[in-house]
């Protein structure tokens, strides 16, 4: 093992198809047109000295170190800004260049501290490297004059010196080490798209300035880390590197946060992570990251992690630490007992969308083959199950159609019910980059999100009322059909024409017009018409959507409406277009692919199919139950009714994340055995009888599948602190139940998946190691995977148009509950917060706030920061108000990252008609001033405290 060194070519790759040939230092080099001479030289193996150039940002030409000479041309141009051209003869090392470079370096070093031995960048400093490269042996100028290096000069205070900014929890800014190369400023602009940094002053006074000379934490900085990565010196340095030192080896792995699936190098010293650095060859992130993946991995070693198995007979008792075998045998005996008493179908399990494909596959295998029923579900139930239903109905596959690179070819992007800037930040950066090149953006969202307005970004915003997605999308279809904007050639060739005609006749009805629906949707009809015309005629149109689409009573209908729009406008089957669900968790796509839904086996094949079942029965050596099992909400209902009494939950906190907390509490309390397999004593564990400690993504091998169907390796970089990887835990539990599953390594599990799942037939660890990643379908027809789906035709044959009638949710506002609550996420926190709350990310968000419009706040006597009581038909809670016009009057908004907020006490049991995906996004509520936590919050807190007790070792031995 060694440190993975990625070549820095100095300037970005040119995508031009034309080639040019030139001579550099006597060697002939052929590169794409538009390539810089610096990059051409590097591709030929010659590294021209450089400081301000790096291939993550465009060339800038400021450091004057990369000078070259070109035969027949005067002067010494910078190689980073000089394009390679046919026939050029370039010299990178001449007497003249050597002198010039030495002079430049001498000036740089004359205003730079010489504390190299104790500097955090020692061993990873480009300034040091360049001083070495140009042969700098002497600095003639001394430090006596003006400088940025010393706090005091000749006994006087040095006004040009600035102290270190340590405000950001993860990195420091030391201005005394800055060479003003602007790499950080350009990374913030070009890669991240936040524009938080600038250079203030000019000449010798030039300084890197976050915002208006603010601290990093106080500025607009979103802590993505791009600037730190770009910095050639110790000016911007990870605090972990300052503390630990330089890493000595690294492994490429996949982030365990959102569904973008960024590839990272885990840079290590022994078994200690020094830092996580985004990997340039990662095809999802292309070398970029966000604050979560880059920095928020401290939870993996957090003191609250549970490392020993625990059990108890009753949740009123404290936990007892036991051996793995004791825990397995206890759990197995309980589950077998329940099955004997209540029947085979009285137990089930939930696979985790945070665990690997291999682990998810094993849990569903244990349930189907070991438990003998199909009561398996996953948290995709509560997020993207409508995507599966909607896209498989219309297109024939339960997945997004594109890769993330596709956005580079989009001309009009429609973002519906998603806030990528917060929830999928690296995709948002890639989208913003395309928007700065001229693509247009339409945002459908009740709230004015960070995607609506940002530096160099202004979207057309359709602020619809929560719950009216179907009406708005059908109205867009109305405009497209009635104004003759349908791509008829596409529809005739690729889709079922008669179904299209039925659909077109339906959407054309006058009651579906923007004008007729405006009263319920709240969307200005003129704006809606403009947006529809733009999407239909503006070139490549791509739709990206999130949980604002799926988490509704009509979630599946909305997904279908989106698919209809894409087909009607011919926006399917090539780069730049498509329907793209942005997945919440790292492996939501994978957990769905792996057969986590109760009605289907891996590869989305219904359990009632004899041929498919035969295949699995032959390999698993058991008889499978042909009937679909219970979905998560059905499990809760069945528990309360008394027919579902045992649940194995891997890596999901259903108590915090599922709607109507009181109902979930009642269901969990009714069960006789709840097994929680997790990193921490989460909220669900308060009602559990067995706790199996889990392992983090750093502690195991496996694969995750991201939102673009990309299967990527997760690589073990440290020994599991709990002693076992999660796949081994599931095998142990299965064995105790009398069901043997033998695997020595997760690669063997993937081999079994590949053998049983046609879309995965070509997937193996060897191939993933060779190609880095593949997108399914990966099989004989597409041995290297499928970046864009439905090229030339739909997977199901003809694309299917389905009529999408708008049926308002039964969750209505009225005199008692006049406001609509909708929920979402914030950049620094992730999902239920179990991971991010245990990192320094809490400096950005340490509590959930209720966003309320000034008008609604004033009517209720609520001021900014006040405690408010938030009540719905389901329950009530309290939290503090944040007054903002991001939300429209009549709409309030909150996040659900903190368990004490109890946002899901408020949400109701209404759910999507097709999949039972809960309606998190629409709840009628009332708000009133409050003095503090509600009685429910107090009781809950007390129960949680009581339930989390762990008996002292001596007590446990008794």
């Amino acid at each position: 093992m060694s440190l993975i060194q990625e070549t820095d070519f100095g300037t970005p790759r040119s995508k031009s198809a034309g080639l040019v040939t030139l001579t550099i230092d006597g060697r002939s080099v052929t590169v794409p047109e538009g390539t810089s001479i610096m990059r051409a030289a590097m591709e030929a193996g010659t590294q021209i000295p450089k400081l301000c150039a790096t291939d993550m940002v465009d060339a800038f030409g400021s450091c004057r170190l990369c000078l070259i000479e070109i035969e027949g041309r005067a002067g010494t141009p910078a190689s980073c800004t000089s394009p390679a051209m046919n026939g050029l003869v370039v010299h990178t090392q001449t007497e003249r260049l050597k002198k010039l470079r030495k002079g430049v370096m001498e000036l740089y070093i004359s205003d730079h501290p010489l504390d190299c031995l104790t500097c955090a960048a020692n061993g990873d400093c480009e300034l040091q490297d360049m001083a070495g490269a140009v042969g700098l042996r002497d600095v003639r100028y001394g430090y006596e004059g003006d400088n940025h290096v010393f706090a005091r000069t000749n006994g006087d205070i040095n006004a040009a010196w600035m102290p270190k900014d340590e405000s950001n929890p993860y990195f420091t800014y030391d201005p005394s080490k800055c060479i003003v190369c602007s790499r950080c400023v350009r990374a913030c602009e070009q890669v991240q798209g936040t524009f938080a940094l600038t250079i203030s002053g000019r000449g010798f006074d030039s300084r890197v300035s976050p915002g208006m000379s603010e601290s990093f934490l106080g500025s607009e900085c979103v802590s993505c880390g791009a600037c730190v990565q770009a910095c050639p010196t110790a000016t911007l340095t990870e605090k972990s590197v300052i503390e630990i030192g330089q890493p000595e080896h690294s492994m490429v792995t996949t982030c365990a946060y959102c569904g973008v699936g960024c590839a990272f190098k885990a840079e290590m010293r022994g078994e200690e992570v020094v830092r996580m650095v985004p990997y340039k060859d990662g095809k999802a992130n292309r070398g970029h990251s966000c604050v979560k993946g880059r920095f928020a991995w401290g939870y993996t070693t957090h003191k609250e992690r549970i490392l020993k198995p625990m059990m108890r007979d009753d949740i009123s008792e404290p936990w007892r630490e036991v051996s793995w075998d004791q825990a397995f045998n206890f759990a197995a005996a309980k589950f077998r007992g329940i099955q004997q008493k209540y029947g085979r179908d009285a137990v089930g399990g939930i696979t985790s969308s945070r665990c690997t494909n291999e682990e998810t596959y094993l849990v569903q295998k244990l349930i189907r083959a070991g438990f003998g029923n199909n009561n398996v579900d996953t948290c995709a139930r509560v997020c993207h199950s409508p995507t599966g239903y909607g896209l498989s109905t219309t297109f024939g596959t339960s997945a997004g159609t594109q890769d993330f690179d596709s956005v580079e070819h989009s001309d009009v992007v429609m973002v519906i019910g998603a806030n990528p800037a917060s929830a999928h930040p690296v995709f948002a950066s890639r989208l913003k980059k395309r928007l700065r090149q001229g693509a247009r953006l339409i945002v459908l969202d009740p709230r004015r999100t960070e995607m609506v307005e940002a530096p160099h970004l202004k979207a057309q915003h359709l602020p619809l009322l929560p719950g009216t997605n179907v009406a708005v999308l059908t109205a867009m279809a109305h405009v497209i059909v009635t104004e003759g904007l349908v791509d008829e050639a596409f529809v005739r060739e690729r889709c079922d024409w008669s179904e299209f005609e039925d659909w077109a006749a339906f959407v054309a009805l006058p009651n579906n017009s923007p004008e007729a629906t405006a009263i319920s949707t709240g969307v200005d009809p003129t704006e809606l018409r403009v947006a529809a015309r733009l999407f239909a005629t503006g070139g490549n149109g791509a739709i990206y959507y999130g949980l604002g689409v799926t988490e509704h009573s009509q979630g599946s209908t909305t997904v279908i409406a989106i698919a209809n729009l894409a087909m009607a406008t011919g926006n399917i089957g090539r780069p730049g277009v498509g329907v793209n669900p942005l997945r919440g968790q790292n492996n939501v796509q994978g957990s769905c692919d792996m057969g986590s839904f109760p009605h289907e086996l891996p590869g989305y094949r219904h359990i009632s199919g004899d041929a498919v079942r035969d295949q699995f029965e032959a390999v698993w050596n058991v008889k499978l139950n042909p009937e679909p099992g219970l979905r998560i909400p059905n499990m809760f209902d069945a528990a309360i009714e008394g027919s579902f009494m045992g649940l194995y939950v891997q890596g999901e906190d259903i108590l915090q994340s599922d709607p109507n907390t009181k109902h979930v509490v009642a269901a969990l309390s009714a069960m006789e055995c709840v097994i929680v397999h997790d990193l921490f004593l989460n909220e669900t564990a308060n009602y559990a009888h067995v706790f199996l400690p889990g392992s983090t993504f750093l502690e195991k091998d496996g694969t995750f599948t991201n939102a673009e169907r990309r299967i990527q390796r997760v690589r073990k970089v440290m020994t599991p602190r709990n002693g076992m990887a999660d796949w081994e835990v599931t095998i142990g539990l299965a064995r105790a139940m009398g069901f043997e599953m033998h695997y020595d390594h997760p690669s063997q599990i993937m081999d079994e998946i590949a053998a049983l799942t046609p879309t995965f037939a070509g997937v193996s660890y060897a191939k993933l190691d060779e190609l880095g990643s593949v997108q399914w379908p990966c099989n004989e027809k597409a041995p290297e995977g499928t970046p864009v789906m439905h090229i030339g035709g739909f997977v199901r044959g003809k694309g299917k148009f389905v009529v999408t009638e708008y049926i308002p949710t039964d969750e209505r506002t009225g005199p008692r509950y006049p406001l609509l609550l909708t929920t979402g996420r914030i950049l620094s926190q992730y999902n239920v917060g179990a991971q991010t709350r245990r990192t320094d990310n809490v400096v950005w968000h340490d509590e959930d706030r209720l966003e309320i419009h000034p008008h609604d706040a004033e009517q209720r006597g609520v001021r900014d920061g006040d405690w408010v009581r938030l009540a719905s038909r389901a329950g009530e809670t309290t939290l503090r108000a944040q007054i903002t016009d991001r939300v429209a009057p009549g709409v309030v908004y909150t996040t659900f990252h903190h368990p004490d907020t109890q946002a899901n006490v408020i949400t109701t049991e209404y759910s999507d008609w097709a999949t039972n995906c809960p309606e998190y996004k629409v709840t009628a509520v009332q708000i009133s001033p409050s003095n503090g936590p509600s009685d429910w919050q107090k009781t809950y807190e007390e129960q949680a405290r009581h339930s989390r007790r762990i008996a002292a070792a001596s007590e446990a031995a008794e």
Partner: protein
Amino acid sequence: MSPDRLIYMANQIGKFFQSQGHDKAVPGIAEHIRKFWDPRMRKAIFTHLDAGGAGLDPNVRDAIATLRNT
């Protein structure tokens, strides 16, 4: 399982298919329930149908009756 919740869920499915007309809606609803409802849920809704099927919309009632007879 509580018939009220199942009736609500079945009617919700029915409403999606309503715009496709009775002839397409009935098999559509029946297939959806067959594919996605666990046997105890189907059994409970059949029991409810036998007891008069109060609260079920007409297409849904027909669909459940068809399903029962297959």
